[in-house]
């Protein structure tokens, strides 16, 4: 069988999709999480429950939504609830199996920064889009999956700002905030359990919580992964190589993107 050609974004999306089981309830962010989750729904997980932050529960879009508020999410959902209800009754209550997030930056403890880089909070060098729903998705979900492209810019030793907490130990020396008890409260879920990138798979060291390389995509080298990581990357002894995309997986992903482009009038996502 000839080897199939695919991009690093395609294998990242497929590697993430494979992990989503048919029985899961997944709170899904727009972009790569949504692409991976809908790919899973089109392949092996037709009954996976996708929740978008707009209040659409059990959405089954035929194409990838441009925003959490796309009309097709409402039309195909099992139910539509208000945003306050979604966060209280559905997320905060601990009903979500997987909070599936993208990120602008992460650190080695799985903390996420989507707020600012450089300068001060009031006057940042780079202003990022902000928290969105992530601070609570990251802590109320039973587990959290993070998907993003790996580079020294996105995988940093220490974040300027923790928007959404992972294992937080990177923050252990930070002063406790007196007027909130946020820092001393436990998360409700297991926290981030996997980071899926265009180069490989990282999972937390069970003792330290430090994200450690557990898998590598075919074609990527360990040196390449290290060079794209802003901390001294540790590697699990039995490093797995991600099985390459199957023809069925690739066809389903490309079909999803083609449908999406046709519906929205142009390309909307990296692939």
């Amino acid at each position, binding site marked *: 069988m000839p080897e199939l050609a695919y991009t690093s974004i395609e294998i990242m999306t497929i590697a993430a999709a494979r992990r989503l089981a048919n029985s899961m309830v997944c709170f899904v962010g727009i972009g790569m999480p949504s692409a991976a989750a809908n790919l899973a729904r089109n392949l092996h997980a037709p009954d996976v429950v996708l929740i978008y*932050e*707009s*209040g*659409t529960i059990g959405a089954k879009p035929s194409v990838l939504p*441009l*925003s959490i*508020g*796309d*009309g097709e*999410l*409402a039309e195909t959902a099992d139910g*539509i*609830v*208000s*945003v*306050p209800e*979604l*966060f*209280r009754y559905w*997320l*905060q209550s601990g009903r979500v199996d997987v909070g599936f997030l993208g990120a602008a930056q992460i650190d080695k403890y799985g*903390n996420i920064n989507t*707020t600012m880089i450089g300068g001060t909070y009031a006057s*940042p*060098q*780079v*202003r990022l*889009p*902000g*928290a*969105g*729903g*992530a*601070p*609570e998705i990251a*802590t*109320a979900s039973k587990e959290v999956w993070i998907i993003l492209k790996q580079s020294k810019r996105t995988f940093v030793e220490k974040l300027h*700002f*923790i*928007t*959404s*907490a*992972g294992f*937080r130990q990177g*923050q252990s020396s930070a002063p406790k*905030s007196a*007027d*909130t*008890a*946020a*820092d*001393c*409260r*436990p*998360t*409700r879920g297991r926290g981030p359990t996997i980071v899926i990138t265009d180069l490989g798979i990282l999972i937390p060291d069970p003792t330290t919580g430090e994200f450690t390389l557990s898998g590598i995509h075919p074609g990527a080298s360990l040196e390449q992964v290290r060079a794209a990581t802003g901390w001294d990357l540790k590697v699990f002894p039995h490093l797995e190589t991600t099985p390459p995309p199957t023809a069925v997986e690739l066809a389903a992903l490309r079909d999803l993107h083609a449908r999406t482009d046709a519906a*929205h*009038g*142009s390309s*909307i996502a990296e692939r």
Partner: protein
Amino acid sequence: MCNQTRIFLGGNPGVGSLHRFRDAIQHGWPIPLEIEEHSHADMAARYQAGASGLPFAVLRGYVGSDIPKYNRSISSVVCPFTGEVLTATRALIPDVAIIHAQKADRKGNVLIQGILGIQKEAVLASKRVIVTVEEIVDRLAAPLNACVIPSWVVTYVSEVPGGAYPSYAHGYYQRDNGFCRAWDEISRDRVTFLQWMREHILDTEDFAGFRSSLPQGTMVSNA
């Protein structure tokens, strides 16, 4: 004029960031902007508290996040039964809420269909409420259990067909994705942004004028 404006969620569907917002924060153009930042769950809770006549709301928020360090509207409370510490957030009571909906009847009862977001809470939290609708009808004919905002909590209703533009109105028309993409380019640069604003907003009389100032082919697709 307001000296405090709050934005619940800023973003451009399918495109990404808001360049003008970022320019204001990073470079203070056209004026420096102060921001008070909350997560979506928190904002939803703040509107709920406002709508409920409570001074604050309780949530499990910001666990391990740096956000509360920079925001004095976020604090904590202790559960009197379990001793657990939870996030407290200050109620939000806007001076005015402006929402767009599908229909109003002649009394001013408003029907919202599709994704509800926090529109009902924003309406019920605000001191004054303006609703623009696709059409004013004799009878709402709202399905059982639909989301209806009764007239007596609405200050003004205005019929503005296409008023969701460039977004969509469920059951009426689709979002203009081409506009959203074009906006990314228009808004990226201060000069093209100002030029666009002059041509389509400042130099047009009203919403109808804005509509007719746009290139042909926009706003023609139907749901």
